[in-house]
C-alpha cells in the first residue's frame, strides 16, 4: 500500500468523526511516514510500519470517550455564537411574526371549538329551562284553557326533550374536546422539552 492509498482508506474508515479531527489524524500519520522515509525506509515499508488502516480506525473508535472529552475541552469559537445570535435578531421580524401568526391561528381554532361547545350548552339550557316553563304554564292552565293547554304542555315537553338531547351533545362534545386538549398539550410538552 502506498501513502495515498493508506491515507484515503484511513479517511474513509474514520467517517463519523468531525472533519477537523480526521484532518489532524491524517497529518499525524503523514508525518510519521515522512520521518520514516527520511531515515531511509521506502514508502511501502513506512506505510506498513503504521499498521492496517482498519486496525487504526478500531483503536480510534475504541478511544472515542477520550477524544470526545478532548473536543468538549475546547471552547466552541465565540465568533460562531455571535454570528448565530446576530442572524436570529436580524431575522426576527420574519420568524417572529410568523410564529405570532401561527399561535394566533391555533388560539382562534381552540376558542372556536370551545365556543361551539358553549353554544350547544347554552342551547341545551335554554331549551330545557324554557321548555319547563312552558310545560308548567300548560299544566297550570290545563283546565281553564283546554285544549290549548294540552298543546302548550306538549310543546313544553318537546322543548325539554330537545334540551336534553342538546345537553347530551354538549357533554360528549365537551368531554371529547377536553381529552383532545390534554393529548395535544402533552404532545406539545414532549416536543418542546422532550429532547433531554
Amino acid at each position: 500500500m502506498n501513502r495515498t492509498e493508506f491515507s484515503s482508506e484511513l479517511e474513509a474508515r474514520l467517517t463519523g468523526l468531525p472533519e477537523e479531527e480526521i484532518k489532524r489524524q491524517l497529518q499525524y500519520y503523514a508525518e510519521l511516514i515522512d520521518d520514516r522515509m527520511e531515515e531511509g525506509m521506502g514508502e511501502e515499508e513506512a506505510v506498513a510500519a503504521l499498521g492496517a488502516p482498519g486496525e487504526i480506525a478500531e483503536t480510534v473508535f475504541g478511544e472515542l470517550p477520550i477524544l470526545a472529552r478532548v473536543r468538549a475541552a475546547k471552547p466552541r469559537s465565540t465568533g460562531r455564537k455571535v454570528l448565530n445570535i446576530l442572524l436570529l435578531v436580524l431575522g426576527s421580524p420574519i420568524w417572529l411574526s410568523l410564529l405570532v401568526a401561527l399561535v394566533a391561528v391555533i388560539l382562534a381554532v381552540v376558542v372556536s371549538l370551545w365556543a361551539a361547545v358553549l353554544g350547544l350548552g347554552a342551547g341545551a339550557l335554554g331549551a330545557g329551562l324554557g321548555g319547563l316553563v312552558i310545560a308548567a304554564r300548560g299544566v297550570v292552565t290545563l283546565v281553564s284553557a283546554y285544549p290549548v293547554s294540552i298543546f302548550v304542555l306538549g310543546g313544553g315537553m318537546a322543548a325539554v326533550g330537545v334540551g336534553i338531547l342538546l345537553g347530551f351533545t354538549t357533554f360528549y362534545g365537551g368531554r371529547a374536546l377536553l381529552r383532545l386538549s390534554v393529548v395535544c398539550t402533552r404532545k406539545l410538552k414532549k416536543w418542546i422539552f422532550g429532547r433531554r
Partner: protein
Amino acid sequence: MLDPQMKRGFLEMCILSALCRGDSYGYQLVKDLSAVVEVSESTLYPILRRLEAAGSLLVYSVEHNGRLRKFYRITEFGRSQLEGFLLSWNEISGMYTFIREGMNP
C-alpha cells in the same frame, strides 16, 4: 498483559518524562518509548491529544525539509503531574507488594 487503561496512564507519564529531556516530535517519541514498552502510533495519538487538552503539553510546528513537523513541549502543569505520579509510587509499590504477598503467604 498490562491492562490497557493502566498502560495508558503510565504512557502519559512516560511521554511527559521524555519531554522533560527536551522537546520532541511524534516519530522520535515513538522510537524512545518503544525501547521501553510496546507501543504503537495509534495508541500514542489519543494520549498525546488528551495531554494537550489537559494542558500538560503544548504543540507547535517547525518547518523541516519543506514540510511542517509538530513538536511537543511539556508545561509547568505537566511537570507537576509527573511529580505527583512519582509521589504516588510508594502507594503503588505498596499495593503491588500486598498483592504479591497475598498469593504466596
